[in-house]
């Protein structure tokens, strides 16, 4: 039987952590793009669009991410596609992230004073012009800290993709545990790697928030 040193374990986990980082980036960027679309629908003037966006957000925030992963995995399969785990993981995580980001951003858009809408409307701007030139530039500023904060949730959420068989940090932890029979050490190290990924994000979100509050107080 092969002996595993702590370094062997750590090296394997770190190699797998690359996939956690990649999937997090894909989910966050993809979710951000879909999230903007949902945000526009959620704040649109047409009632139908607003309803659709509301239902989308309720559905994805009100059901477990694990179920969404299962449904993406088996649902895409039903359409006759041969679904690799990374595809189902990516699709489910992008849709899930979009629901949360659009809801966070809606709060930021609604925090912009109503007079800004009225003023830009009185200048003859259409909805997209208002968003582009007046509302979003201001909303963006308050949106940064909670958005960075939510990226922590995305990194942690990628751990669920191990359950549908995507090999990232958590799956590697299980595999290495099965090979070494050292669950305490392995899952401890896995937790520490996640911590090393997430903690800087949490901390910077806090710092950004504090800075923003200072800016607000000076107004």
């Amino acid at each position, binding site marked *: 039987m092969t002996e595993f040193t702590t370094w062997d374990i750590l090296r394997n986990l770190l190699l797998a952590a690359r996939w956690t980082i990649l999937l997090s980036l894909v989910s966050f960027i993809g979710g951000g793009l879909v999230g903007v679309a949902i945000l526009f629908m959620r704040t649109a003037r047409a009632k139908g669009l607003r309803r659709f966006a509301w239902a989308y957000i309720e559905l994805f925030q*009100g059901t477990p991410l*694990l179920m969404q992963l299962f449904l993406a995995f088996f649902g895409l399969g039903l359409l006759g596609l041969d679904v690799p785990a990374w595809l189902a993981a990516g699709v489910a995580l992008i849709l899930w992230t979009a629901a949360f980001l659009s809801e966070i951003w809606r709060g930021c858009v609604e925090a912009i004073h109503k007079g800004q809408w009225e003023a830009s409307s009185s200048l003859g701007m259409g909805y997209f012009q208002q968003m582009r030139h007046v509302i979003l530039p201001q909303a963006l500023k308050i949106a940064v800290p909670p958005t960075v904060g939510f990226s922590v949730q995305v990194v942690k959420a990628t751990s*669920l993709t191990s359950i549908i068989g995507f090999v990232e940090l958590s799956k590697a932890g299980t595999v290495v545990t099965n090979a070494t029979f050292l*669950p305490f050490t392995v899952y401890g190290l896995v937790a520490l790697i996640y911590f090393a990924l997430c903690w800087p994000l949490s901390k910077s979100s806090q710092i950004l928030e504090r800075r923003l509050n200072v800016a607000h107080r000076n107004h």
Partner: protein
Amino acid sequence: MRLDFGWLAEYAPVLLKGVGITLQLIAVGALIGIALGTACAWARALGPRWLGRIVAVYVELIRNTPFLIQLFFVFFGLPSLGLQLSELQAANLAMIINLGAYSCEIIRAGIQATPRGQFEAGASLAMKPLQVFRHVVLIPALQKIWPALSSQVVIVLLGSAVVSQIAAEDLTFAANFIQSRNFRAFETYIVTTLIYLALALALRQALRGVGWWLFPIRALR
């Protein structure tokens, strides 16, 4: 593509049993988790500094690692320290530890929003610090943050789906079992997802009701 829900009648009892376990997990997790969170919030906001530091480390560790890994650590890792837990005990413990950390931060925000005059008024009535906390500070603090706390409990309910991975027989475990029998994975998970949605909506309403019962004085804001 044709969907088939004919299996539903046969397997409804299995789903129902899973729902029961999931509800039991969230009930125990929420009750003890919020109690733990309250104690931790006291330690961070008002307790001795050394205790506050320890609690801060606990909170940061839990909030920056996935629930799945916490669960695996409790179930697979702790036995090597001599703490052997059943699947349900491990699931319960992991949920308590998880909610404890999140609710600590939420409740702490409520405590820190309490005006200084409240503490002073309590002290001037010859109350000891813990009495002030228990009788003067805590209830209004909880009332302020109750919506945020409720959302966190719903998040823990949805997160509890992963306890099926250590073979705790919750709703997701039931779904996994059923789809291994009827080979109708998509339909099974659709039904299970809708049940989770209904549970989440019901839990939100229930927590709103608890809020009305816990905080009868509306003016306290």
